[in-house]
């Protein structure tokens, strides 16, 4: 996506949503859905659209774990770290995932394929451990099933 189409996308989203009550989160979701992240240079446009300061917009983006200001990999693995998953061995799974991908949390693989983010509960606690990739949720994830999923998604294993 070129710089000008990015700006256009951001402007369209702001124009569509700015008259909602409490419009900032819907706008940020809209931008992240469209672009995969919220480019820092979109902050002035958002601030102007909502009559806020840039600091206020930046403050909101940085408060919420889900919003990111850098592009993610092609797939983002959200691995659950919460108690239910821990009770079913997620600490060992976490170690496996980090080794397999060669990255830590909040990092992206060098080939740009995968980002890794922790998540605190996916509501899938009846089938722990759990992870989410895009809108897909996976339950009873083991080291083996994780490897299979990565292979299906086109990782160079």
């Amino acid at each position, binding site marked *: 996506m070129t710089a000008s189409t990015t700006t256009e996308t951001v402007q369209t989203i702001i124009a569509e949503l700015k008259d909602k009550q409490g419009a900032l989160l*819907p706008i940020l979701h809209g931008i992240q859905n469209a672009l995969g992240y919220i480019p820092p240079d979109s902050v002035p446009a958002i601030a102007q659209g909502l009559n806020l300061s840039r600091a206020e917009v930046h403050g909101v983006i940085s408060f919420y774990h*889900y919003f990111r200001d850098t592009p993610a990999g092609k797939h983002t693995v959200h691995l659950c770290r*919460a108690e*239910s*998953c821990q*009770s*079913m061995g997620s600490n060992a799974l976490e170690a496996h995932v980090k080794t397999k991908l060669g990255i830590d949390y909040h990092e992206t693989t060098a080939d740009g394929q995968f980002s890794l983010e922790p998540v605190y509960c996916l509501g899938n*606690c*009846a089938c722990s451990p759990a992870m989410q990739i895009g809108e897909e*949720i996976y339950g009873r994830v083991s080291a083996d099933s994780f490897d299979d999923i990565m292979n299906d998604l086109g990782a160079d294993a």
Partner: protein
Amino acid sequence: MSTTIYISGDSTAISIGANRTAAAVVKEAAQRGIAVNLVRNGSRGLFWLEPLVEVVVNNDRVAYGAVNHSDVAGLFDADFINGGHHSLALGAVEEIPYFKKQQRLTFARVGITDPISLDDYLAHDGYRGLKNALASSQADIVKQVTDSGLRGRGGAAFPTGIKWNTVLNTPSEQKYIICNADEGDSGTFSDRMIMEGDPFVLIEGMTIAGLAVGANQGFIYLRVEYPHAHKALNAAIAKAYEASYLGDNIQGSGKKFDLEVRLGAGAYVCGEETSLMESLEGKRGLVRFKPPLPAISGLFGQPTVVNNVISLASVPVILDKGGDYYRDFGMGRSRGTLPLQLAGNLKHTGLVEIAFGMTLRELLYDFGCGSATGRPIKAVQVGGPLGAFVPESQFDTPLDYEAFAANWTVLGHGGVVAFDDTMNMAEMARYAMEFCAIESCGKCTPCRIGSTRGIEVMDDIINNVDREKNVVLLRSLCDTLLNGSLCALGGMTPYPVLSALNHFPEDFGLDAV
């Protein structure tokens, strides 16, 4: 004539292969020339049997589970379309003891109906509560809810009727209904199951709340981690608008109620009601001081009802059958039913809706069938990450808000996470501090700084650096968090920490009690 087959579209069922099973059923049926009407229902909540396949034979539903996609051809060979025998055959779900022993009021339709079919909802007693509400005065609606004894199912257990009454009696041009669907507690998934499995019941409950207190705008604040619930809610809301169950003239009454889903963005603290309202207003999710109560000055400074998903989804049955009907379930001051969630290291995880009063032990062993790993259950954490770890010696506590509070434990949202004897409770205490540090909104000092100091103190205890002294320090720090925090995040992090320390001192390198 086509055969109706139900395969759950619940995200947990999907997470263990329900979509692949459904695709295999469709493909196999096509190859064999069998006409099939596939319905993606909510989950019955018996997750060890998911993916569950139910076939309608002579108007009865015959279940098979757990059905992997590789089992599907064998099921067709066994003529499961006509209820044929197969090793995965379960008979009727209603006769499985785990299900049969339950008392499903709030979850009455979940797993039975097509979640986004309004016709199905109406055919299964849907919108009867709203019909009664439209024929009642505002005060009478609030009275039914008060009489039912319903208390906030999000965890705080505040009487719902009293909250509604305050909003009703606070004059304002504009009032709001907020559904707190930021179900962030580990081990809880009942909100998600309702939103995916019976979204209309939540919409109906919110509409009734709006009529009761005079609010014409509702927001469902949904966590972003629930994409399936998001789709189901939006689909159901669109249908409710089409059929005038939402909008400017609800069922010709002249009453107005609009409803919109708003997404959170991964902040646990936004499950706290004032932080949630800040987030809805488009701000950082900083907790507000109370007073003023949200019921008097809430969203955009207006009187606001903030209720949990299960609280609101319990309102239609109360308005349909009366407050007395609901109140007759339960014990003591805990009235009605609680949808419990069995999670973590249990053989039979799932959703158990039952009247208050059963013991934790019955829940863990009669329903949960003990640990999944086959090892002894060392502790269970009830009520999410801010709930205490309950040791085996307290398993005979009845599931009741007051009985739990008397043990310095928390029933909360009814989530139960079991741990076997391989878990180290000092590590869990450290994690509780770490979680608090990650999720703290930063407004109050005890939570913001205390949680990070807590991690350091726990590290020293685990690594045997001045252990005895640091245990004293940890207790003092917990005292500060308990008494000095602005909200439950800092205020309740000591529950898991101190319960782990008190009940499992050997895991902290101390002498056993």
